């Protein structure tokens, strides 16, 4: 389900926005029994928005590229009047009184919201399995996880349940599920897209971005949400924001950096798939250069300490008083907070809060927190140095492809699935994951392209080149309805 293709059908009146919304909704609801990609459907709202888009079309009003196009939002993005639960018992039934910046921007451009998508509880996880609604599944094998935390968004897009979805990425939460589901997942530079109205995980690393079925769509949606917003104090107001999509062209005249550190522990199928893609780009004019990224192999550990620290303070507000469900078993305000948090937060969330509280304690602070901060700076510096020697860095998005949902994996092993993505968040850089092949089981392999800060254009141009050279062979064709 590509945006430009849908746009043409709508503009040429071969299809109405209402027909498109109705059919996509019907298909999404039918597929949701197996994929579990959506946790809330907004059927009547979607049909009303589609009807309004049809009226604009009928009146020959100038329509934006996203007008009348069906899409979804991750369930941690606030939507006025529509439940936003972060897939947690703590926020079950929470209906925000306002829209997130990105929701408002897309609404203003005529987006047709089909619903809210599944995710790991409070975005803490890489499997989507910590969702209180149960995990989403990859459309390539519904016995396998979708990845996470934006698993529902990736599964929805890959299965054709809407043209695009908006996710959030703190350590790889857009790119890793996109890789597992065969979609394009794009994390812009930290500070590009406003997080106002995003229920934060770790505000020092969180960034919002699109999941789409092709690279061109990623650029279109990025342009739609990339604007300065004073309500997010980390949203940069001192950069020039030019639309990427109108002038995006495939680019292979690039120096590609390859770092051994970003291939360590990758499955053979994954490494081979990514290196085949690099060879293809090389055959078409790219130069390949070995670079080193010292300390980047410790990204997961550094991320584990620093993100947990931010989580422990950030989650303080969910106490049954200011936010969240309130326990009925308490005797004083202190016991109310403890009882509410104990009753309504899930195991993974509690584990990370505990870790974060520990690393910020007097003992943990010097042993872990301060040291992790130092290594984080070294990781950032590694990327900066490497990106002076090359234009982009290519790596696998994750060391494996999607794995079975019932696999009894240790939580540390699951944390390690972010090993190639977390460093990018620690350095605040932009990166995109695109499908580049399939493993022996037929599951999609994700290739990650990392670029310099605020140089989204170059990574998308390289991604577009690969997509063109392979004639879109790896774009998900699972269940496209149009």
């Amino acid at each position, binding site marked *: 389900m590509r945006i430009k293709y849908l746009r043409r059908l709508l503009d040429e009146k071969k299809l109405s926005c209402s027909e498109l919304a109705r059919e996509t909704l019907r298909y999404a609801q039918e597929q949701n029994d197996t994929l579990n990609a959506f946790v809330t459907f907004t059927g009547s709202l979607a049909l009303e928005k589609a009807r309004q888009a049809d009226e604009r079309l009928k009146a020959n009003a100038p329509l934006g590229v996203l007008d009348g196009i069906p899409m979804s939002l991750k369930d941690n993005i606030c939507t006025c009047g529509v439940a936003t639960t972060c897939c947690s018992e703590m926020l079950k039934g929470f209906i925000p009184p306002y829209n997130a910046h990105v929701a408002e921007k897309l609404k203003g451009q005529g987006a047709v919201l089909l619903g809210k998508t599944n995710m790991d509880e409070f975005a803490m996880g890489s499997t989507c399995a910590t969702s209180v609604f149960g995990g989403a599944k990859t459309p390539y094998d519904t016995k396998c996880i979708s990845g996470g935390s934006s698993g529902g968004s990736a599964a929805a897009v890959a299965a054709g349940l809407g043209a695009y979805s908006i996710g959030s990425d703190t350590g790889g939460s857009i790119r890793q599920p996109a890789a597992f589901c065969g979609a394009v997942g794009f994390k812009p530079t930290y500070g590009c897209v406003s997080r106002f109205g995003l229920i*934060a995980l770790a*505000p*020092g690393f969180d960034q919002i971005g699109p999941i789409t079925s092709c690279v061109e769509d990623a650029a279109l949606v990025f342009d739609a949400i990339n604007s300065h917003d004073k309500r997010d104090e980390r949203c940069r107001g001192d950069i020039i924001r030019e639309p990427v999509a109108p002038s995006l062209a495939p680019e292979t005249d690039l120096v590609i950096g390859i770092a051994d550190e970003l291939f360590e522990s990758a499955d053979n199928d994954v490494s081979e798939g990514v290196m085949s893609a690099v060879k293809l780009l090389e055959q078409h004019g790219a130069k390949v250069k070995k670079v080193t990224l010292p*300390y980047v192999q*410790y990204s997961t*550990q*550094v991320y*584990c*300490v620093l993100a947990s620290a931010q989580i*422990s*303070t*950030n*989650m*303080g*507000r969910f*106490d049954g008083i*200011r936010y969240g469900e309130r326990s009925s078993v308490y005797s004083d305000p*202190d016991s109310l*907070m*403890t*009882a509410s*948090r*104990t009753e309504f*937060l899930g195991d993974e969330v*509690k*584990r990370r*809060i*505990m*870790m974060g*509280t*520990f*690393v*910020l*304690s007097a*003992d*943990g602070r010097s*042993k*872990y927190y*301060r*040291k*992790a*901060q*130092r*290594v984080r*700076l*070294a990781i950032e510096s590694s990327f900066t140095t490497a990106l002076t020697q090359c234009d982009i860095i290519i790596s696998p998005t994750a060391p494996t492809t999607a794995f079975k949902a019932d696999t009894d994996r240790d*939580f*540390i092993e699951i*944390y390690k699935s972010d090993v190639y993505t977390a460093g990018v968040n620690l350095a605040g850089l932009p990166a995109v994951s695109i499908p580049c092949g399939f493993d022996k089981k037929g599951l999609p392999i994700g290739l990650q392209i990392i670029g310099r800060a605020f140089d989204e254009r170059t990574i998308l141009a390289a991604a577009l080149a690969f997509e063109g050279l392979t004639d879109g062979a790896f774009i998900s064709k699972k269940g496209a309805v149009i």
Partner: protein
Amino acid sequence: MIDREQVRNVAAMAHLRFDESQMCDITAQLDKMAAFAHVISDIADTLPEMEDDTPTSDRPSVRESAGADPDFSSGGFICVDGRTVR
């Protein structure tokens, strides 16, 4: 090695409660996480010391003013005499 008493203190600070069997599990898990993260300790020792690596929101002057802003990113925690209160 993280012991159960440390975990009990951390749980109290985090406003979480664990029964005895859960306490055993969470202690083992925290210990495992700490062991996993410990590798960065040796690495960090080879790197230059930072002047002030405390995040802005965690500095005492900022923390003390946090109470004025209910949406402050620390969740409204205020540090008083070294203790975290609301």
